[in-house]
């Protein structure tokens, strides 16, 4: 399958022509099987998404029939979704909450990561270990503690309250991944600046921060996706329609009758919140993979 093994195979000088022909045939069959596997994987991964996209454009009359392929397409469900005040408010809430969470996590987290990755201080190993543990901390375990805390701070059912709680899973992750980035930069860069008499803070701001831009982008993207998709806290810590985020509203879409759920609207709403993410993934594919694996493989 890999190039290396194929060149190794061609190094063996063939002794008779018939054998190579047979090997060639086998190669073609294997190649076909391999591509079949590739197609199977792509279909398996994309089918539910494509099916939802298709459903979101089908008229209700067709949606609730047993026909598989659409004969007509409509934008009705999208119009309905954007006329729904709850959904529009949720979109705004999600953007504000996820956006602010990422900005705060990056600002505080990258300062902390600079210290952990570049500066000398005691207990560094212990702090790093603690942060790694926190990246895996189960959020359900602090649910009642946060619930009471938000009530006493008067932050229950507010965006600020959600932003504060979202730092639980974005901060440790940001610090951990950004520390890896700061560590990977060569030492010579700052040494030259220190010789010229620059202060550590100036070195951070002028030299190291610009170099970790790619890291900030991938960490920020991952944190944004995590905050955008979060459900448990949003469901537990908001009650009024004006404060809910998109995942909560999508989980609670209900039709005019209690018998049938409005699947067209649910699919249209789902696509509205998913398509931006899919586009982000397509554009920043490389950066996202880098950020996802930075914590696990290097650590």
């Amino acid at each position, binding site marked *: 399958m890999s190039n290396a093994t194929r060149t190794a195979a061609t190094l063996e000088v063939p002794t008779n022509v018939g054998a190579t022909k047979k090997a060639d045939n086998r190669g073609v069959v294997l190649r076909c099987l391999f591509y079949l596997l590739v197609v199977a994987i792509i279909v398996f991964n994309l089918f539910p*998404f494509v099916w939802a996209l298709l459903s979101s454009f089908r008229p209700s009359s067709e949606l609730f029939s047993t026909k*598989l392929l659409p004969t007509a397409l409509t934008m009705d469900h999208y119009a309905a979704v954007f006329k729904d005040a709850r959904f529009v408010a949720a979109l705004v809430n999600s953007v504000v909450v996820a956006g602010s969470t990422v900005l705060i996590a990056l600002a505080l987290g990258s300062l902390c990561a600079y210290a952990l990755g570049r500066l000398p201080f005691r207990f560094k190993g212990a702090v790093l270990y603690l942060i790694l543990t926190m990246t895996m901390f189960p959020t359900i375990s602090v649910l009642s503690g*946060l619930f009471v805390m938000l009530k006493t701070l008067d932050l229950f059912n507010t965006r600020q309250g959600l932003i504060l709680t979202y730092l639980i899973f974005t901060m440790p992750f940001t610090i951990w991944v950004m520390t890896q980035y700061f560590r990977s930069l060569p030492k010579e860069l700052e040494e030259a600046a220190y010789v010229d008499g620059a202060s550590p803070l100036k070195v951070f701001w002028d030299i190291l921060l610009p170099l970790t831009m790619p890291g900030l982008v991938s960490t920020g993207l991952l944190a944004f996706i995590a905050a955008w998709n979060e459900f448990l806290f949003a469901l537990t810590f908001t009650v009024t329609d004006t404060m809910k985020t998109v995942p909560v509203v999508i*989980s609670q879409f209900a039709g005019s009758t209690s018998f049938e759920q409005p699947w067209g609207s649910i699919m249209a709403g789902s696509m509205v919140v998913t398509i931006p993410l899919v586009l982000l993934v397509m554009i920043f594919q490389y950066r996202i993979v880098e950020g996802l694996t930075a914590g696990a493989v290097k650590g």
Partner: protein
Amino acid sequence: MIKEIDLYARQKRLAWFLIMPSVIVVLLIIAYPTIQVLVYSLLKYKLDGVTPPSFVGFDNFAFVLSDPDWWSAVSNTLIFTVVSVVLESILGLMIAMVANSKFKGRTLLRVAILVPWAIPTVVSAQVWKWMVNDIYGVVNIVLTDLHILPEKIAWLATPATALPVIIAVDVWKATPFMALLLLAGLQLIPKDLYEAGSIDGATKVRQFWAITLPLVTPTLLVALIFRTLDALRVFDIFYVMVGGQGNMATMAVYNQQQLISFLDAGVGSATSVIILVIIMLFVILYTRFSRTSFE
């Protein structure tokens, strides 16, 4: 020399100064609530704003541990975790090996496997719920048209069919993450090992068992820990697909219901403590296992 010592002292001071904001936030939102949960778990604490909290010792734990709904939640969570993590590892390794070989359309494959990962869990749960809809769902229509099923099934109505569907959703959603981590692990394996293997006449199958699998195992273990801890606290998929049906909860769903539906912070906190202990047991088990397998 003096200047160097001076710089070192300044760096040290700055370090503490930079770490402080993060430490304060983390203490406020993780350490403090955790201590509160430990305290609440020993209290009779109704969130109705009427009854004042009172100390009841381990009564809340006794309540949870004698509740049949809790035990069905534990069993659902464990079955879900073991089956989905095993399937995700096998499929993830397969996809990673395919994505690691050179062929036309490799980028398309890599983007395609990222799509399920990026879709919000609530959305994937709703999409699958629609696909397995008892009357209009594509799964039922196709399976009955092909005569694989004699008649349409209400997949989410009973645990026996709902659990496999829920596991399928999780496998669909989380396999990409597994595949990406394993792909990064595969790329660390030196190519000349395979060259040496082929020269010695080792078949592809033999190369997989002798080279790929042992060398990718450390990455696999890390990925396994991440996924297991994630699966043990599963909430979104179950909540959206089967809602509050009594015997279809998970540990996290049970916990959230105690807190929000029954407004019981005491029992809710006791449940949180038990979940935390179970998760810690898994971590210890994994670290033990990975140590013995590497020494």
